[in-house]
């Protein structure tokens, strides 16, 4: 918020009574009517509906009329035979994703930022963004084609005929590598934009002093990126339990479930496919609560590292 500007504007406005100010702006409130209504109906009422995690939801009795059962659904989830497997898979899949996919956009941005051939730089950026604009469905279709045991690109190159999607040991690698392919290029935008704001006279001064390219990156660019890096890391760590449903569901086979069984897929299967509404809501809520705890913890730790990055 640019505080000075809004203060002066507010000062001018507060000279008139509140009622008059509201009447003056009725058209602006009218514009907000539809968005506010949509948000209440489809965002806030479902939040209120989370209480069915503690009830035995029956469609006829509604959110508040269904019988209260306390923590029964949570206890049932904790004692599910695949509970620990799902927790482990969810955490490991997103932790390894984070470890691999966090540094790569930063490295790419640092390199591209130093590229002096502008047309080449632009073409590279355009191509790097491309996979981000492709549907997960298409990406997973490509993965399946490339990994096909007969005639798949990977097997053709390696001269083997391995059915990778039936190997649970290969699942995480497939998931993470394809994720990097799809989104690392898009991830550079925020870093490129930050780097573009660095004063170019710093580079000139460093060159005069005889600093090499590597030294300029280490001493000018990386310090410039630190706060945005920490911010991004917090955001990612806060969603550690949020493994996306789409890709896992599309790449899951009966034989790789030992590593591909994750909570989000379970929430979908129980809630939508099996119509166990209360149970699925409880599992989803459990996941959200852990995420919020993680977010607060990481935010606190990051606050200790640097003051400017607390964002809640």
């Amino acid at each position, binding site marked *: 918020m640019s505080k000075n500007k809004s203060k002066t504007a507010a000062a001018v406005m507060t000279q008139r009574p509140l009622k008059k100010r509201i009447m003056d702006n009725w058209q602006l409130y009218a514009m907000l009517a539809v968005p506010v209504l949509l948000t209440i109906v489809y965002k806030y009422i479902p939040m209120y509906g989370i209480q069915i995690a503690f009830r035995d939801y029956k469609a006829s009795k509604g959110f508040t009329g269904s019988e209260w059962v306390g923590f029964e659904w949570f206890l049932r989830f904790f004692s599910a035979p695949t509970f620990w497997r799902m927790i482990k898979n969810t955490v490991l899949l997103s932790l390894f994703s984070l470890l691999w996919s966090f540094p790569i956009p930063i490295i790419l941005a640092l390199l591209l930022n130093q590229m*002096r051939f502008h047309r080449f730089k632009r073409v590279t950026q355009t191509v790097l963004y491309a996979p981000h604009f492709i549907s997960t469905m*298409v990406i997973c279709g490509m993965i399946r084609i490339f990994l096909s045991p007969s005639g798949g690109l990977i097997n053709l190159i390696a001269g083997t005929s391995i059915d990778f999607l039936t190997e649970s040991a290969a699942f995480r690698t497939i998931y993470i590598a394809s994720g990097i392919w799809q989104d690392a290029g898009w991830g550079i935008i925020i870093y490129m934009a*930050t780097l573009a704001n660095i004063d170019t006279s710093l580079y000139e001064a460093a060159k005069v002093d005889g600093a090499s390219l590597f030294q300029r990156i280490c001493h000018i660019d990386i310090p410039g990126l630190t706060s945005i890096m920490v911010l991004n890391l917090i955001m990612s760590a806060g969603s550690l339990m949020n493994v996306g449903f789409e890709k896992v569901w599309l790449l899951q086979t009966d034989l790789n479930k030992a590593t591909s069984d994750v909570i989000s897929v379970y929430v979908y299967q129980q809630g939508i496919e099996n119509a166990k509404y209360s149970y699925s809501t409880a599992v989803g809520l459990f996941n959200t609560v852990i995420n919020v705890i993680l977010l607060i913890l990481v935010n606190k730790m990051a606050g200790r590292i640097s003051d400017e990055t607390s964002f809640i």
Partner: protein
Amino acid sequence: MRAMSVKSKSGKLSGFSERTSDIILVVICTVVLFLVAYPLYYVLIASVSDPYDVYAGKTFLLPSQFTLEGYRAVFAEPQILTGLFNSFKYTIIGTVFSVVVLYLTAYPLSVKGLPGRKFLSIFFIITMYFGGGMVPTYLIVKHTGLINNMWALFLPGGVAVGNMIIVRNFFENSIPKEMTEAAQIDGASKWKTFIQIVVPLSRSIMAVMVVFSMVAYWNDWFTSLIYLPSPERAPLPLVLRNILIKSSASASQASTISGGFAELNKMTEMIKFSSIIIAALPMLVIYPFVQKYFEKGFMAGAVKG
């Protein structure tokens, strides 16, 4: 490359080590470019090649026995045509709806001194971090009678808050206040100011938002999977699920049993490659037009988000 380096301004100043580091950068970037582009290129050439040659590994660099049979087969498949039609419909209506809602939200929230502005902003931003989750949302959508209704794709998404913040910041920072104030002194209503000054002055950010919405609707299938169960309403990606995901599982089983690609259904294999291209191409053609605005928009969103 050499000609370009001479042209570039600081090239004159650089000595040997600068040139070496330029070469290293170009080499690394070329490798990265290849890694990103090759899978797409491979699908493209495989889509116009004979499937047996693809499966024998004869199409690494160039198409073999050029044919458009795959594309002809795709457009002869009624399911895919329905999906394509649905996808176009959902994308167009959804984009218009989303961008209108986005603008209607972002503009009032960008007007300084609007009573309740802060409260309203927080009201929207909270939904970025907390939600009801899959099932409660599903139950509300069901309750409001939207199952198997196209509007289930647009209404529950409501306001795209992240994009809304970007647009709001654009209004605050890039539209000269003098212009909106002058219009209101001349007697224009708030609504008229919005339509005649703010909307025309924000064309660049609108282009970005249109592209973002189009991409989101064109690529989405999960919302349709949940809310539009009847097959004749499925968008293209959901139709492709049967071709790309389900059939590949059975195909790989079949091939392990028969021990090769002799049993391969030639048509299915051709359709796979060409349908990928058809699903991916429209968005890949569009985004470069607004690419130059991405960085600006993201920066505006990040600074104040």
